[in-house]
């Protein structure tokens, strides 16, 4: 599974993307975030406040309780501020 990070989430994690293989009990975006948070202090810092995080699964915006079991690409990022 490819995981992408944007904006201050990317800066805190320290990379823009990484390839990961979460265990089978990671079934939702929220579960994936919990599991990723243990990878480094940067990850833990980026994911400290769930209310400031948004996600997309295979490029479609989803809520954090959405499933990730079959996802090829999961993106985790702050609320958007374009335009």
């Amino acid at each position, binding site marked *: 599974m490819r995981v*992408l990070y*944007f*904006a*201050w989430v*990317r800066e805190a994690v320290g990379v823009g993307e990484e390839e990961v293989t979460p265990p089978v009990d990671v079934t939702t975006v929220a579960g994936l975030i919990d599991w990723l948070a243990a990878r480094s202090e940067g990850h833990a810092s980026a994911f400290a406040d769930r209310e400031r995080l948004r996600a*997309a699964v295979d*490029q*479609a*915006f989803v809520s954090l309780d959405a499933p990730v079991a079959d996802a090829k690409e999961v*993106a985790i*990022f*702050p*609320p*958007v*501020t*374009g*335009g």
Partner: protein
Amino acid sequence: MTIRILVSPDPIDVAAEMTRVENGVGAVATFTGLVRADDGVGTLELEHYPGATETALHRLAEEAIARWSLSEATVVHRVGPMRPGERIVFVATAAAHRGAALEACAYLIDRLKTDAPFWKREVRGGDAVWVEPRATDDAAAARWRS
């Protein structure tokens, strides 16, 4: 009808974009968002989610075309670093009558603000700060859901 979506680091050519949508119709509405020159920002940086951005903008344009029977919908968004006074985003809508063009233009920029994966960072002097989302943007997008 025609949809034009462009996400690019190049400056936005509004004259060319306007001419493109003036295609036999009666009414064209546009919105241009610019880097304000009055609040001390030296550089504005726009990050986006390549691929997902274009998909999101295309979907918004399709929704606007269906809802207001537009003949044209254009969304151009600049990414990368830009300076005060430069254009960040340009939306244009074309329709037979003005009400449809004006409403659809407001719809596209309101929805873009909350539903397209762009992030702004303002650089003032040596400090770079990610822009926080505004509650008024959520409210503006929500009014179209009624």
